[in-house]
């Protein structure tokens, strides 16, 4: 159902959205952030929803609200991850985001490089199973038969590969932040 700005802007519609989304958001955000940060995130979320609805309609407003809250929470978590944050670093980040927004190509190159490095750093057995599934498109059963292992072991390798890719990207991201912070000084 489409929500039009004039519908949303009624007190009743605002109250309905908040009563529907706030308890679940609060519960989930409290597992990532402090109570005061959660309050900030919720306030920013509903403010942003309000502002967006003045410009355009939103399809599935509840899902949109959850995603906006998650993105604002990510921004907060990123700030905490950067212990050496300075004004210059923020400017650097803004420029980086801006320049990335200007050029999808540079974003793709950055992602490709990070992912290639992360995949290369996977343990040999994980990488072998990952390539068989993601590049050659073999099913779990086919991989199991090919490598003489169980389907469960194939799934464990793939799950481990995904977790390690994630961890590798988080570590590279943190390292990149520290490097850019030092370069800016």
């Amino acid at each position: 159902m489409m929500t039009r700005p004039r519908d949303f802007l009624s007190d009743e519609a605002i109250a309905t959205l908040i009563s529907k989304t706030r308890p679940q958001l609060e519960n989930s955000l409290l597992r990532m952030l402090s109570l005061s940060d959660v309050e900030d995130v919720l306030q920013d979320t509903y403010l942003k929803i309000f502002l967006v609805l003045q410009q355009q309609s939103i399809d599935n407003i509840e899902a949109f609200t959850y995603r906006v809250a998650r993105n604002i929470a990510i921004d907060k978590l990123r700030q905490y991850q950067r212990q050496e944050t300075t004004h210059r670093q923020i400017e650097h980040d803004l420029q980086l985001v801006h320049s990335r927004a200007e050029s999808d190509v540079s974003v793709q190159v950055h992602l490709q490089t990070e992912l290639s490095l992360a995949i290369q750093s996977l343990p040999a057995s994980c990488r072998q199973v990952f390539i068989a599934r993601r590049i050659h498109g073999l099913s779990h059963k086919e991989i199991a038969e090919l490598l003489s292992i169980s389907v469960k072991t194939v799934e464990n390798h793939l799950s481990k590969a995904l977790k390690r890719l994630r961890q590798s990207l988080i570590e590279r991201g943190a390292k990149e932040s520290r490097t850019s912070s030092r370069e800016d000084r």
Partner: protein
Amino acid sequence: MNIIEDWVGIGIPEDIIAQACTWIVKLDDPDCSTETEGAFLSWLERDLLHQWAYEELAELWAKAGSIDSVREGIAVGIRHSSETVEAGLRWWESVTVIAIMTAGVLLGIINAST
């Protein structure tokens, strides 16, 4: 979602990340059953953190298998690996041939002297 932090499940508890990884892998299998899909949907609806973890890690999973340079880089890696294996085999083949030839010469010498 173009910044890496947008699709690595930042801040989400590790146990939920592990569960999301397991579901993504199960759903990615072409032989995935409808029972598994049903169980996944129940898990997804149980917690907003499950939805966030799944959305973001599914994007990482998709990107990791589809970006051209990743595929090309891996293909190069595979070529290098197979070249290394072939080079290794060629080296062992040479050693084997030399060993057989040496053994033959030695046997010839021994036979000649007896």
